[in-house]
Every structure is written in C-alpha cells, then in structure tokens.
C-alpha cells in the first residue's frame, strides 16, 4: 500500500481533470449519436462515473472526506435511477416492441 499511495504524488491533478473531461465527452457523444435507448442510458452512467472520479480525485488531493461521501450518495442515487429508468425502458418496449427513441417523438406535443 505504501508504493501505491506514493504513485499519486507523481500524477498531477490536471490529468485527472483531463481524463474525466474525456470520459464525460464520450458519454455526451454517446447520447448524441445513438438511437438505442439502452445505449443512451449506459452513456448517462458513463457521465455519472466521470463526475464521481473527479470528485474522488479532488477529495483525495485536498484532504477533505466530504467529496468521497458525496460520491457515495451519487452511487446510491445512480442505483435508484437505473432501476426506475430500466423499468421505463421495459414499459416502452412492451408498448412499442422497439427501443428506438425516434418512436417516442410523438411525446413532443
């Protein structure tokens, strides 16, 4: 454990910000270019995880435990969100026999 914790001193905080920005952008691109509702949902999970990693990195680098507690709450919220969202997707699939989100464009009125 000693050599693991010594590696963190060598990595600048900016690189964690860069990694989180890249992963978050990949999630945004996934939401924009795909039409499968489940893939869009997975992209949202990717964005949530990028933010989690950034919060944990800030918490570690500033020596404040509140950030990691906040990540814990986000994880509990993500579990609830996944359950409700997948139930909605199951209901959409049962009513339309497809998970193409273009079918849902009748919602826009």
């Amino acid at each position, binding site marked *: *454990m000693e050599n*693991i*914790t010594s*590696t*963190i*001193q060598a*990595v*600048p905080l*900016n690189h964690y910000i*860069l*990694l989180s*920005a890249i*992963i978050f*952008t*990949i999630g*945004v*691109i*996934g939401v*924009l*270019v*795909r*039409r*499968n509702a*489940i*893939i869009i949902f*997975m*992209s949202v*999970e*990717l964005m949530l*995880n990028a933010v*989690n*990693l950034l919060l*944990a990195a800030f*918490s*570690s*680098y*500033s*020596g404040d*435990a*509140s950030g*990691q*507690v906040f*990540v*814990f709450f986000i*994880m*509990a919220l*993500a*579990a609830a*969100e*996944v*359950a409700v969202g*997948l*139930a*909605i997707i*199951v*209901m959409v*699939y*049962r009513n339309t026999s*497809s*998970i193409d989100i273009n079918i849902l464009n009748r919602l826009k009125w």
Partner: protein
Amino acid sequence: MSLFYVVAFLSIIFALLVIFTKNPVHSVLYLIATFFTFTIHYIILNAQFLAVVNFIVYMGAIMVLFLFVLMLMNLNTDTEPMKSTLLKVVGAIAGGCLLVTLVGSMKTLSSASTTAMDNTGIGLVENLGKVLFSDFLLPFELSSILLLAAMVGAVLLAKKDNKTA
C-alpha cells in the same frame, strides 16, 4: 506513476467501445470493463471504500440489471436502430466542441494543489464512516427514503397494467 496512465488509456478505449459497438450485449460488457478500470482508479487514489462500493454496486447490481433487461428484449445487431451519417458527424463535432471548451477552461485554472496529501487515509472506511454518520446523517437517512420510493416506482412501472391495456 505509469500505472495511472495505463489505466486511464484503458478507460478511454473501453468507453469509446461502449458507444461505438453495434451489438448492445457487447456494449454492456465493455461498460463492465470501464467500471473495472474506474475501480482501479479509486484504488490508486487510496479511496478504498469507494473502490469496494463501486465494484459491488456498479459491476454487480447495475450490470446485472442491464443484462437482464437486454435479455428480456431479445436485441441484436440486425434490430439495432442507427442514425444517419450526417447526424453522427454532427454529434461527434458537438461533443468535440464540448471537450475543447472543458480543456480550454481547465487551462485557466491555477495549478496550485498538484501535490497530494494522501497520508491521512481519508478514503478508509473508518474515517468516511465518522464523517457520514456525524455531518451527513440526515442526507444518509433521506437516501433510504429515495431508495424505497425508487423500488416502489420501478415495480409499479414495470408491472403489466390490466385495467387500461
């Protein structure tokens, strides 16, 4: 030092594979790999409690949910709806603009706190538990109500409706 960069590279590769693979089942499997690399990131950050919770919640609970829903729907590459090439290019360009904006705003940050003060062990279960049950006791209890509401809501939504349908 180099372990972070290897794992970060793997994270980006797996995240790209999640959104560019045609088969939804492969997407879920790549998502599991991405979450595993995030677990390694938490271990590198010495946030051991978060690493364990990430492993159990994301790679256990959430991935089982995704796989079960995919199994119920019988999807494959043939039924996969795809957008037109123009919309894909526009989406990728918009995402690239977002990335440029984020990185550009990062450049204006002051790089003050680049050294880690990691010898306090704030990521351990003992220290996190003390903070969680003293300062954050009310949000912790409220999250149980959130989970209960989500459970009831999920059952209600996924239940077959006999009256209207």
